[in-house]
C-alpha cells in the first residue's frame, strides 16, 4: 500500500494501541528553561527517572537576556529561578544542557539542526509550539504540554491519536526576492490561521524542493500558526549534506546506512492525504501582516483591507478590534505605515542565511533616524559565523544593535519589550496583541523586509533595494 512520509514515520514508531490512542515511541526530547524546568522538577518530585537521558537536551533561550555580558540575572522578574532551576535539574537528571556560556547555546529550533540532533525519520518533541520547525528535516516533530513532556521523559513514549494528514504542493518557483517567510504568510492569508487545523502538513512541489535547508525551517516553523499538528518536508541531498559531520549526526558506516534509510522517507506515488492544496509558487509576492493574527497577511504593495475582504473568516468584532489595536485605517497603503522599531530574530528567521540577506540590503546604508533596530542571532554559532564574515559590522554600521542569541523580544514574558503602541516590523512568527510587549503593534515580515523598512522608516517592499548579494 502506498504510504505518505508521515505514515512511514508513524508506523515505525507506533508501539501499541491504548484506548482510542496509540502509544508512540519518542526518539528525542528537547527542553528549554521556561517550561523544561517545571517538567524536570515535577518528575524528580515524583521520584521518576528519565528513561533515556542521552536522548534529552535542554537549552536556555526563552528567558535569558540577550544583552552582551548577560548573566543569570534577567530583566524579567523571577526569570533567574527558571535559569538556575533548569541548570540544577538538568545536571541532576544527567541530560545534555546547552548552557548560557556554551558555544552551542541558542534558540532550540536553531540549535537542534545545527548540532545534528534532529534527523530524518525521528520523532522529536519539545514543550514549545514551534517544534514543528524541525519537521523540515523529514522528522515528525511537534510541540507538547508540560505534562506530556514528563510522560515523554519518563517513558520515551507519548499517547496520541494519529493526526490527519495534508499535503501542500507548491508548483513552479518562487519569484526572485520572494522568500519562504512570504510563502508561509501567503498560505496563512489565503487559507486562514485554522487552515491546517490538527493536520500533519507535508510541504512538497518544485518550489519547496528548491528551498535551501534554512528556508525550509522557516516554512515549517509557521505551521503552528496554521494550526497544524506539525509540518514536514521529505529529506533530500540538501538535508544530508547539511547534516554530514554535525556533532550528533551518524558517522562512518552508520552514515551510509542512515542515508540509505533516509532516502526511503518520502511519500510514495499514490499516497493519499486527508486534504490536498496545490498552489503555484508564482502567486506569492513579498508579504506582511496588517493585523493581530498571522492570517491578517497581505502583499506589501497592497492596502489595509476593508472588512469585506476578510469577512469569510474574521467576525466584524475581531476585525474592528484588530484595526483599532493596530492603529490603522482600511484602504491605507501598507507602505505608508511608519515604523518605530525593526526586529530581526526568532526561530523563524535568525539563521545565517537570514542575516546575510538582511545585511545585503543594509550594507553601506543607515536605518532611519528614530527607528530602534535590533538583530538577535538565533544561536551562538550563528552569531560567531556571522561575525567571522563581518555581518555584525554591517548591522552595527547600519544602526542595528547586535545581540547575544535567544528568543529575546519575539515574545514578552515580563522582560524586555517594545513600547506601548509602537509599530514594529519583525521577522518573528506571532503578531498577537501584546506579543512583543504591552500594546505593541507587530507586523510580521521577512528579514529583508525588516531591513528595508528599517532603512526607510516605513513598511517597505525589499525588492526596491534590488537583488543585492552580500559579498563576503
Amino acid at each position, binding site marked *: 500500500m502506498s504510504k505518505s512520509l508521515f505514515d512511514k514515520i508513524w508506523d515505525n514508531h507506533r*508501539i501499541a494501541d*491504548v484506548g482510542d490512542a496509540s*502509544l508512540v515511541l519518542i526518539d528525542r526530547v528537547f527542553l528549554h528553561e521556561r517550561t523544561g524546568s517545571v517538567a524536570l522538577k515535577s518528575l524528580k518530585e515524583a521520584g521518576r527517572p528519565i528513561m533515556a537521558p*542521552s536522548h534529552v537536551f535542554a537549552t536556555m533561550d526563552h528567558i535569558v537576556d540577550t544583552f552582551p555580558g548577560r548573566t543569570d540575572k534577567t530583566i524579567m522578574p523571577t526569570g533567574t529561578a527558571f535559569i538556575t532551576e533548569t541548570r540544577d535539574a538538568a545536571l541532576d537528571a544527567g541530560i545534555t544542557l546547552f548552557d548560557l556560556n556554551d558555544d552551542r547555546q541558542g534558540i532550540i529550533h536553531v540549535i537542534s539542526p545545527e548540532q545534528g540532533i534532529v534527523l530524518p525519520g525521528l520523532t522529536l518533541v519539545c514543550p514549545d509550539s514551534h517544534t514543528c520547525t524541525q519537521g523540515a528535516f523529514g522528522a515528525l516533530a511537534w510541540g507538547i504540554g508540560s505534562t506530556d513532556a514528563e510522560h515523554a521523559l519518563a*517513558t520515551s513514549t507519548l499517547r496520541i491519536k494519529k493526526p490527519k494528514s495534508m499535503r501542500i504542493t507548491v508548483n513552479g518557483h518562487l519569484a526572485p526576492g520572494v522568500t519562504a517567510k512570504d510563502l508561509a504568510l501567503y498560505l496563512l492569508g489565503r487559507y486562514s490561521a485554522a487552515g491546517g487545523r490538527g493536520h500533519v502538513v507535508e510541504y512538497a512541489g518544485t518550489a519547496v524542493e528548491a528551498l535551501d535547508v534554512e528556508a525550509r525551517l522557516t516554512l515549517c516553523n509557521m505551521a503552528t500558526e496554521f494550526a497544524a499538528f506539525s509540518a514536514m518536508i521529505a529529506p533530500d541531498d540538501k538535508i544530508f549534506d547539511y547534516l554530514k559531520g554535525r556533532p550528533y549526526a551518524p558517522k562512518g558506516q*552508520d552514515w551510509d*546506512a542512515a542515508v540509505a534509510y533516509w532516502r526511503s522517507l518520502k511519500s510514495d506515488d499514490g499516497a493519499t492525504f486527508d486534504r490536498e492544496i496545490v498552489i503555484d509558487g508564482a502567486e506569492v509576492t513579498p508579504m506582511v501582516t496588517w493585523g493581530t493574527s498571522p492570517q491578517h497577511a497581505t502583499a506589501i504593495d497592497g492596502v489595509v483591507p476593508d472588512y469585506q475582504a476578510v469577512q469569510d473568516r474574521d467576525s466584524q468584532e475581531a476585525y474592528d478590534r484588530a484595526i483599532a489595536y493596530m492603529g490603522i485605517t482600511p484602504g491605507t497603503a501598507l507602505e505608508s505605515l511608519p515604523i518605530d522599531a525593526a526586529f530581526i530574530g526568532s526561530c523563524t528567521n535568525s539563521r545565517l542565511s537570514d542575516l546575510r540577506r538582511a545585511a545585503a540590503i543594509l550594507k553601506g546604508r543607515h536605518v532611519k533616524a528614530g527607528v530602534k533596530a535590533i538583530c538577535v542571532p538565533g544561536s551562538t554559532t550563528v552569531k560567531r559565523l556571522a561575525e567571522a564574515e563581518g555581518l555584525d559590522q554591517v548591522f552595527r554600521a547600519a544602526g542595528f544593535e547586535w545581540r547575544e542569541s535567544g528568543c529575546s523580544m519575539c515574545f514578552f514574558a515580563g522582560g524586555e519589550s517594545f513600547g506601548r503602541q509602537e509599530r514594529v516590523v519583525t521577522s518573528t512568527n506571532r503578531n498577537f496583541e501584546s506579543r512583543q510587549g504591552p500594546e505593541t503593534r507587530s507586523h510580521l515580515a521577512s528579514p529583508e523586509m525588516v531591513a528595508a523598512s528599517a532603512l526607510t522608516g516605513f513598511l517597505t517592499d525589499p525588492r526596491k533595494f534590488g537583488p543585492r548579494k552580500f559579498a563576503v
Partner: protein
Amino acid sequence: MQPFTVLTAIAMPLIRANVDTDAIIPSREMKKVSKTGLSDGLFAGWRYQEVGGRDPNPDFVMNRAPYDKSEIILGGVNFGCGSSREHAVWALAEYGFRAILAPSFAPIFQANCITNGILPVELAADIIARIAQDLEQDPQQRQLVIDLPQQTVTSPDGSIYGFEIGGEAKEMLLEGLDPIDLTLKLRDRIQAVRVAGQNRRPWEYL
C-alpha cells in the same frame, strides 16, 4: 496518586456557566517553577476581597463553613473552559477537591482532571440542581456519595443517579494511576521496541 473508589463528602455549589480556567486560577497566581503552591490562588478572583490580596471574601461560597471542607464541586455547563492551563486542575487537586459534577466540561480540562486524580462526573443540569437543593438543607450532615466502581451518585434523599466514564479513565482513577504509571505497565514492550530499533537503526540511539 490517591485511588478513587467511593467518596462521601461535602459538596459546594458553584453552579455558574462557563467557569473558565482563568477564574479557577488567574495567571497572576502562577508565578513559580512548580506544580505545587497553587491552592492559595484557587478561585482567587472570587475568593479574596482584592486582586492579589488574601483577605477572604465572605460572600464566596468556599469561604463559608462547612463548604471550606468541600471535596466536591457542583458546577455549571462548560466547566473548565478557556486557556488549557493545567494549573487549574493542579490547584483544585492541591486544595483537596476530588470530584466535580457538571452538565458538561471543556475537553482538555476534563482530560486534565482524570490525569490528576479528580473525577469529572457529567450529569444533567436539572439533576445537579436537584442535588444542590437536597444538600443545602444541611450541608454538613447531608453529604454526597460518589461510587466510581458502580458509576453512581447518591444524594442524601436516597436518589441514585448513574453516570458514564471511559474505561481507561476509570482504571486510572480507581487505581490512582496517572498516564505515566499506565504507560509504564508496558515498559517491557517499550524496551523491546527500543532494542529492536537500536539493531535496525543504531545511529538513532545516542
